[in-house]
């Protein structure tokens, strides 16, 4: 850590640089502009922090998310005032929904100009109040250092999230005192941490339910990944010790190894048949770090009607918000899982696999339906097949995989097997098209030696394809694998199911020539439209040392199944073969 004398005076811009270094930051993502120029000048005069220049501030935010999620560190964004800052709002909201720790610095017009409609002025603290965990407008340079350290503390502790610091240009230019990294003692925030309720009573109640369960299931979300690698290891120990089945949410993929026999697939709208029916019929549900999202619960009144529910969550607001639970444990996942394990060991509870054999047999019967099967074609590439082959050729190298949003995202979640946490980067809560490419950039910057793949769709890819330029500039060997069906596939799927196939605005006219597009950015392009060629083309992609844009032309009409239509319960899950008989029940459900 840099030691500083108390009397030292630094410019606000220098204070930002020093505070970032003291927070251990070595990489930031951003885009310069008028109101943040003093900071960019201070950045130019140092060599500790690497700045990655995005081509759009939204992409800078998603790259910081990809960096944060693939490392567990705080992602940092620096942008200018006005449009620079407003462009980050989608990324900040995405991070807020998916609990990603970010600190975003935005330049602001000088304090004397604030509120006068100055050039590139926007009330960014007002605009981001509802999509950040907290935000600051710094009016005095002497407050800047403490605020930065408090912002990092808030971003990474409790339920993580984005924090924005708005720094007017004159504050960056004026000189003040920086005392180095100090302890954060904000009373209102400490009160929240003291509330965590890891008391013996509710741990004992949870274990009582676990001991007597006949049809138990673990339902695990991204909270376990956010809690850290140790939490994931403890979870695996707990699940294997008890011999219970486990399902992960979209955000939770990788928290428990997908190739482990206890894992019965993802649950929710496009989860497996066995995971959803097991959730419906279980008698004890152990939810760790998941928030009963509507993609998971389906119709709330029909959700897992006969179960006792244990809910472990660091965010008290998530408890009893959607589903009333029987045992609520408001705590960090790692500590709670550890406490459960200790209590289980204290009571000498062994493996219960044999005791719940009837339940496992039932699950195996559901598994035998093979809900992820699809019609194989010799003529066109089925998107499921393409992802299965991608998984086959890459699983040993345990790649980082990012996605955009839509059909390709669900197929990737279904067919790529994640055995490790922090490898899976997808926009779960907000569902942001355009997330995938910049998130992959962030992951590749953080993990330069690892294979990073972005699975995208033709429509999503075009929402942030300017980032090919960033990929080229930093020579990042990101592999972009586009499942190109010439449609906004998920929109078309809903129109097919709910709107009698009226394909309103979901066809992608005038797509670019992806090969020429790649070439124009100096990136290797690969195209494939034949199932017979997919293996060699995927291998060509993996073995190419630099970035690749892979245009995989797939079946246009394929839909994602299984599917719990919006507004239905888990036991109303549709398999692909049943889709034609489907009648919409609730046109207001999304």
């Amino acid at each position: 850590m840099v030691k500083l004398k108390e009397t030292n005076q630094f410019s606000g811009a220098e204070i930002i640089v020093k505070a970032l270094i003291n927070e251990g930051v070595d990489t930031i993502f951003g885009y310069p502009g008028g109101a943040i120029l003093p900071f960019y000048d201070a950045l130019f005069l140092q060599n500790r922090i690497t700045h990655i220049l995005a081509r759009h501030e939204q992409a800078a935010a998603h790259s910081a998310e990809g960096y944060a999620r693939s490392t567990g560190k705080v992602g940092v964004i620096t942008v200018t005032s006005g449009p620079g800052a407003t462009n980050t709002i989608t990324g900040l909201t995405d991070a807020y929904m998916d609990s990603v720790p970010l600190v975003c610095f935005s330049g602001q017009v000088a304090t004397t100009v604030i509120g006068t409609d100055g050039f590139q002025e926007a009330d960014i603290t007002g605009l981001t109040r509802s999509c950040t965990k907290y935000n600051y407008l710094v009016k005095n340079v002497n407050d800047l250092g403490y605020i930065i350290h408090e912002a990092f503390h808030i971003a990474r502790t409790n339920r993580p999230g984005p924090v924005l610091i708005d720094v007017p240009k004159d504050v960056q230019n004026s000189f003040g005192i920086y005392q180095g990294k100090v302890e954060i003692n904000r009373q209102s925030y400490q009160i929240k941490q003291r509330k965590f309720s890891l008391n013996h009573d509710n741990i004992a109640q949870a274990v009582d339910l676990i001991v007597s369960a006949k049809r138990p299931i673990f339902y695990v979300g991204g909270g376990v990944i956010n809690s850290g690698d140790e939490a994931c290891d403890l979870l695996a120990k707990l699940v294997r010790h008890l011999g219970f089945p486990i399902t992960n949410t979209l955000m939770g993929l990788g928290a428990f190894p997908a190739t482990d026999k206890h894992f019965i697939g993802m649950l929710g709208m496009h989860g497996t048949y066995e995971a959803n029916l097991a959730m419906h019929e279980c008698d004890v549900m152990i939810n760790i770090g998941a928030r009963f999202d509507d993609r998971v619960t389906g119709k709330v009144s029909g959700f897992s009607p006969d179960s006792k529910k244990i809910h472990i969550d660091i965010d008290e607001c998530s408890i009893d918000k959607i589903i009333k639970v029987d045992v609520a444990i408001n705590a960090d996942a790692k500590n709670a899982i550890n406490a459960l394990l200790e209590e289980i060991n204290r009571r000498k509870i062994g493996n219960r696999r044999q005791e719940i054999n009837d339940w496992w047999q039932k699950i195996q019967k559901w598994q035998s339906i093979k809900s992820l099967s699809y019609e194989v074609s010799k003529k066109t590439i089925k998107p499921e097949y393409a992802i299965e082959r991608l998984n086959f050729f890459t699983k040993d190298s345990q790649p980082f995989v990012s996605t955009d949003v839509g059909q390709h995202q669900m197929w990737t979640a279904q067919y790529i097997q994640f055995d490790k946490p922090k490898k899976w980067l997808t926009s779960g809560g907000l569902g942001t098209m355009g997330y995938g490419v910049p998130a992959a950039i962030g992951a590749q910057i953080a993990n330069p030696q690892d294979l990073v793949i972005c699975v995208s769709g033709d429509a999503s890819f075009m929402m942030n394809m300017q980032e090919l330029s960033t990929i080229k500039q930093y020579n990042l060997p990101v592999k972009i694998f586009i499942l190109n069906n010439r449609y906004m596939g998920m929109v078309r799927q809903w129109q097919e199911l709910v709107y009698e196939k009226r394909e309103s605005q979901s066809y992608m006219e005038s797509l670019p020539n992806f090969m020429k597009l790649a070439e124009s950015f100096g990136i290797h392009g690969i195209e494939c439209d034949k199932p017979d060629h997919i293996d060699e083309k995927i291998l060509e992609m993996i073995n190419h040392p630099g970035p690749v844009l892979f245009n995989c032309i797939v079946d246009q009409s394929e839909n994602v199944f299984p599917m719990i239509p919006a507004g239905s319960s888990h036991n109303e899950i549709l398999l692909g073969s049943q889709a034609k008989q489907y009648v919409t029940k609730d046109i207001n459900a999304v």
Partner: protein
Amino acid sequence: MTEIRRHVIAVLIDNEFGALARVVELFSGRGYNIETLSVASISQDKKLSRITITTFGTDKTVDLICKLLCRIVPVHNAAELSKNDDYIERELCLAQIISTQQQLADAQKSLKNFRFQIIDTEEDSTVFEIIGSSKEIDEALKILENHGLATVSRTGIAGGFKGKKRLDQI
């Protein structure tokens, strides 16, 4: 649970810009109107403020709002006062009437069951200060409507639990 009723919520919060906006947005973002809101710093060093809010909504939504209030970084504590009857509330109202001397005398007589005093008179204008629950003030204002009521300014309620129960013990 789904019945719409009146709720009184109290919040202890750091006295800083933007803090009140964070509180208010939790209501507006859910399409909830704030009926009354009062806020002032309550500590000698002016660092801590107390907000009292009344709103109409379902128990479920208000419960969630209270939890979300506690999650706001500068909030120390937040709780619903009106879960049970063990809370007290007071509101202050300034009501001006424009009246003849006879109407003024009638007005004072009609308000004899209320806690009020006259705090300003100028020509035919008289300003009453009235203190009570929101309901009492509603009633007093209704009476004054027949006695030349001209302008009204209400503070919204200040509230707290009865006895020694504190906001941070909920």
